[in-house]
């Protein structure tokens, strides 16, 4: 080809009536989009708007549309509910533990696995496997393991001469136990993320720092960690969103008990919405969950992730 490329780009010829553009008009474009758009609006945006609408009514969810408008009563009731305040505390505690214990642990493992050690491919795979299991299978398996009488956990403690523990059966230990199970299932996922991030860091930078006399810790602190920051930000984001919607594991292992001591927002929502058929009240819980996620997502992307590329989120964290 000689001379400058003067052919019009496709995007510039759109809407042109010329015959060779047949099948590229705006209508066609919209046709490609339409099926996805309809499904998305009806089943994703619609329900969110519906829950806002329902949340202003006292309604059992049956028979046509809700009639009994009660303003913000569901929200004030929610605000004053001990169960809901507990939900927020439990979610907050689990999140705090995840951020302060689970993620650093994942990072340590990732850094160790990033070195040339024997069997690292095997370990990487092994640590990732719990992530691909469903939370349901994980929950049932650990219910048996943590069973106080004959479960594996207490048998192991006994065999090494330690006192047995109450695990899921006591309000004081249930959240820690849940956290251990959550970590078992998810730390490998974060390790894989960090490993991918670590492998994206050019070795030359670390070598240069070493030549300048930096020790292992200094290289990690001043070279590796800053370069890994975008990955860490994503991993924190996924952890927070995961904590807000935590349901399966809790529902299966404890049902929120004993005495609501491990209940989360999602468990309360399903309990009221389905079992007690208080759809209005339950919708208020969805709305609050939605507002919390939205505020977090917007704030986080605005203030924390703004330097990272747009679209760099993988919310398939829990694959839901």
């Amino acid at each position, binding site marked *: 080809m000689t001379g400058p490329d003067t052919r019009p780009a496709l995007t510039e010829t759109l809407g042109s009536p010329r015959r060779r553009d047949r099948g590229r008009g705006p209508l066609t474009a919209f046709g490609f*989009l339409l099926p996805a758009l309809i499904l998305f609006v009806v089943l994703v945006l619609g329900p969110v708007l*519906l829950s806002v609408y329902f949340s202003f009514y006292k309604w059992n969810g049956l028979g046509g549309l809700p009639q009994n408008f009660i303003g913000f009563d569901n929200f004030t009731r929610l605000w004053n509910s001990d169960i809901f305040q507990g939900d927020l505390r439990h979610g907050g505690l689990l999140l705090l533990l995840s951020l302060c214990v689970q993620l650093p642990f994942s990072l340590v493992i990732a850094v160790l696995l990033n070195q040339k050690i024997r069997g690292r491919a095997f*370990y990487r795979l092994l640590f990732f496997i719990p992530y*691909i299991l469903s939370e349901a*299978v994980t929950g049932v398996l*650990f219910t048996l393991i943590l069973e106080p009488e*004959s479960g594996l956990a207490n048998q192991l403690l006994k065999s090494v001469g330690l006192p047995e523990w109450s695990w899921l059966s006591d309000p004081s230990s249930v959240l820690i136990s849940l956290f251990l199970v959550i970590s078992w299932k998810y730390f490998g996922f974060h390790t894989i993320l960090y490993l991918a991030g670590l492998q994206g860091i050019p070795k030359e930078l670390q070598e240069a720092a070493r030549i300048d006399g930096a020790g292992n810790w200094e290289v990690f602190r001043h070279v590796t960690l800053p370069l890994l920051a975008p990955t860490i930000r994503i991993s924190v984001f996924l952890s927070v969103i995961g904590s807000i919607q935590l349901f399966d594991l809790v529902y299966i292992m404890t049902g929120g008990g004993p005495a609501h001591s491990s209940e989360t927002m999602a468990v309360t*929502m399903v309990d009221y919405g389905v079992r007690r058929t208080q759809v209005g009240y339950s919708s208020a819980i969805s709305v609050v969950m939605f507002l919390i996620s*939205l505020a977090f997502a917007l704030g986080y992307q605005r203030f924390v992730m703004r330097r990272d590329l747009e679209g760099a989120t*993988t919310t398939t964290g829990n694959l839901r």
Partner: protein
Amino acid sequence: MKALRRLPIHVVILIAALFVLLPFLYGLLGAFKDNAQLSTNPLGLPSPWVPSNFTDVFSAGNFWRQLLNSTYIAIVTTVLLVALSALAAFAFARLSFRGREFYYVLFTIGLMFPFTVAVLPLFVLLRTVGLLDNPLGVILPQVAYGLPITIIILRAFFRAIPREVEEAATIDGCTAYGFFWRVLLPMARPALATVSVLGVVASWNNFLLPLLIFTDPNQMTLPLGVQQFQGLYASDYAKILAYVTCSMVPALLFFTVAERQLISGLTAGATKG
């Protein structure tokens, strides 16, 4: 001496490996024990090996039925999800029309809130239109919720295909649809594989939606089946472990086949920037 210096690394990793491995071993070995063995000898090899837990699971429960349901729902979800997303991603990546950015942002907003927040009105909605105890009641919402991330991944991939390819196709007389179907999709096979694997895993592991939609044990998927089975055989631990083990196997098999796509899909977004 280098080996000695590395010893702590190996110790830490070995402890983590034990932490991960023990529950699997307990489940797998426990499934071959009876309940007496399970409480006196939780981690040792079964003696004797008791296969009856498995035969009970296969004959008494709805295991096969639920395996089939899970498979069917995962496949239909993924096919629909990838088809609709590919069409939409093509429009976003290669065509121009009024409101393109608006619609794209609309989809990305879907990423911001978790599925859980909409599940209750969704349940009310599906009950109103009579989709309870119907696989479609799970499939359609799963597709809808998978759209944002799938569209984002595919759009990025479609955009990366050079314009020259499209121009060549146009000169050869391809319509937009022809280019999409005969040129773009075949070129995008790796990306399609990645999003398909993500879709299958998401569908396979979904619990909350099937929990609300299915009341008929014959319709239930495996995660729900496991939970129901535990409720039925509350004290028969060995049998529950057999069920748990059986329902892990398909996921693990799938993982051995699709490990590469799964990991690349999950880490793709997170390492940019």
